[in-house]
């Protein structure tokens, strides 16, 4: 009994820590909804969760045509995050056109978008299509005739990205309830797309018209998908609005929590804090002190840190790679973790160890291009010139065995010449005259 209390206390503590997580990029959140589609009060648990995450939530109801949506004031972004509930009508299409959403996303704003089969939210669909996410058209909803429940349930096994939702043994039996009306999407083949929740093998989409071809069949379809652009801004699409409703909130809370954390950048956010490369050796002579030349030994280091919702902590991984490129990579080295960085203990230091620069001069890029699905991207590049050898930096001839014969010849010629001069001068001319040259007469 006492043990149970301790477990409860621990869970409350964990929940409070989780709930207090903060986004790494900001908390200003705009929620756009339409009262005609759904009553926002049925999502109170979701909004409470946002408040627990310390998001500063502003809601905007769009059924009133006088409502205007301003995502920017001049060129300054007014919100850090945008949550789009299904909204219908031309007014909405004008106010929140796909171009505006793209601009918001390109300028660092994260977007969580929800669609339902009954409502045609054209701007959201157009925006998602730009990302490579193609939700089923209006009227086409997902069905799985092999499920007993009228609501569509998805298991933890169907989740695909560990950086969005980490599957632990405790969570393996969890089922997520998406309600009756669910959209499924086809995904493009882009690397920036983060497939999150796959539809079941026996599922399919169908519309009102019996002859209409299904949009997705089996595991082709996805009901949740994410996208992270090259500026590390995230977008997530959820194919059901009921997934967030109070009715299913308790069942889906874990996944909702993780989706909010990922989309609004509370988790899986990493960055580089220190990048350096020096000549190998204890002195660590920098490039500025002594520019690199071909075949020099150099060492490259980078420090990575991760946002845990509260603070920056060292990011530890075994797949951080360095590349030395001149158009194509000459080296690609998997770096080894060295422990906390001396300058910043909240970062993990990675090093290539000593490696020899190629025997080719020119402009080279020292680059860490660390991109993993679901993690924020790291692209640290430093372009440096690597010079060729100066004429006095090549090996001297006396270091080459072949030349020893020639060197010995030169040395003996020099010595012989000096000796000859000495002998020529010191030997009297009459010496040769002393030698008998008489002809034999006998």
């Amino acid at each position, binding site marked *: 009994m006492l043990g149970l209390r301790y477990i409860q206390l621990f869970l409350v503590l964990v929940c409070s820590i989780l709930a207090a997580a903060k986004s790494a990029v900001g908390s200003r959140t705009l929620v756009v909804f339409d009262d005609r589609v759904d009553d926002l009060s049925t999502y109170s648990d979701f909004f409470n969760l946002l408040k627990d995450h310390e998001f500063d939530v502003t809601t905007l109801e769009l059924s009133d045509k006088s409502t205007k949506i301003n995502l920017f004031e001049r060129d300054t972004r007014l919100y850090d995050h945008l949550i789009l509930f299904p909204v219908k009508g031309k007014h909405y299409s004008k106010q929140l056109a796909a171009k505006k959403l793209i601009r918001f996303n390109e300028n660092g704003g994260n977007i969580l978008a929800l669609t339902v089969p009954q409502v045609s939210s054209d701007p959201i669909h157009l925006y998602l299509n730009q990302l490579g996410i193609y939700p089923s058209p209006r009227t086409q909803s997902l069905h799985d005739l092999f499920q007993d429940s009228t609501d569509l349930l998805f298991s933890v096994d169907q989740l695909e990205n560990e950086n969005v939702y980490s599957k632990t043994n405790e969570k393996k039996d969890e089922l997520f309830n998406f309600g009756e009306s669910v959209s499924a999407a086809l995904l493009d083949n882009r690397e920036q797309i983060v497939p999150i929740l796959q539809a079941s*093998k026996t599922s399919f989409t169908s519309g009102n018209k019996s002859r209409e071809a299904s949009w997705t069949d*089996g595991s082709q379809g996805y009901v949740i998908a994410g996208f992270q652009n090259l500026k590390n801004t995230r977008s997530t699409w959820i194919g059901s609005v009921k997934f967030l409703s109070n009715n299913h909130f308790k069942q889906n809370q874990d996944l909702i929590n993780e989706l909010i954390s990922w989309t609004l950048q509370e988790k899986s956010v990493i960055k580089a804090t220190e990048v350096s490369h020096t000549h190998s050796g204890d002195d660590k002579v920098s490039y500025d002190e002594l520019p690199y030349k071909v075949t020099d030994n150099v060492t490259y280091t980078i420090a990575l840190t991760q946002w845990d919702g509260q603070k920056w902590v060292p990011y530890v991984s075994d797949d951080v*790679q360095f590349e030395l490129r001149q158009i194509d990579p000459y*080296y690609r080295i998997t770096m080894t973790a060295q422990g906390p960085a001396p300058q910043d203990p909240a970062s993990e230091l990675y090093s290539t160890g000593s490696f020899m620069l190629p025997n080719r001069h020119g402009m080279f890029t020292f680059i860490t291009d660390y991109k993993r699905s679901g993690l924020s991207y790291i692209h640290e590049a430093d372009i440096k010139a690597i010079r060729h050898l100066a004429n006095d930096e090549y090996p001297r001839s006396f270091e080459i065995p*072949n030349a020893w014969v020639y060197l010995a010849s030169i040395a003996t010629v020099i010595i*012989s010449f000096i000796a000859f*001069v000495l002998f*020529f*001068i010191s030997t009297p001319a009459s010496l040769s005259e002393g*030698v008998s040259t008489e002809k034999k007469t006998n």
Partner: protein
Amino acid sequence: MKLLKAITVLTTAIGCASAFIIKDAKISFKDETREAIELGQLDETFMKAESAPLLIKDLDEVVSFKFKLDLSKSKSKEIPQQLSLLVGIADKALEVPIVAKVKDSSKNNKVKLVSFKVDLQALPKSVLHYAFVNDNEQITASLIVANDKKQLARKETNLYFPVFHLQFTDSAKETIVDTFEEPLRYGKQVELAHTFPNPPKTADPTLSLLFAGAVTMVNMFLYMYWINFNAISFENFPSGKDFIPFIGFFGSIIGCEIVFALYYLGTGIFETVNCLAIVAPVGLILGSKFLRSYNQKI
């Protein structure tokens, strides 16, 4: 284990029954010389999928799968809502649905004639690629026959089970051109290291030393020859007033040789020129003076 399986199947059969009866199932091929395979009646317990795969010798092959769908015992007499054949690599969740062609039986309107055509050339390149490169990856065809719960009686169930596997023969793999390229995905890449050219080949140091010694020895023999034939004498060694110019002349020759050797060993050209500018005039002046005065003695 077999007993347990049998009990499970029996329990399932007693508890629930399929809403659909699949009869006279048959697999045939485009190649008419190849004999069709009669499967008979099929249900979830159909175990043919575990048997040997159907061997495909040519990418032109079209596999037809036909059966009679008996709806006489099911609640709904309509064509099932979901009637498709999922074809692909099941383990990789890489499957495409093939839509059925359905006709009414001429004898009984509660029996539908269902046929699927698996045109291998029409399958996605990715599916064919994985079937080519890995013998363990077979193309699986799974049948789905399902209706909405409202259209099923209380104990009726839907059908979903693998019907057959396809595998390319080695000779087929040799003739088929695989043009599929894996899509780019973020992840750890293969490590690369620059390959340096081999250092130029050099002679064995022992051999070089041997030849260098031989050259030195030849010179030693020359000196010995001179000495042996009395060609060397120091009788005429400059002395008196000739001594100083001789030392200057001889020293400048040695100096020039040393400057040359130092240049060879790495001294800069400007330093070398400076040194020569000192040594050479001294050698020239003292040398000409000495040689002029000593001319008669040589």
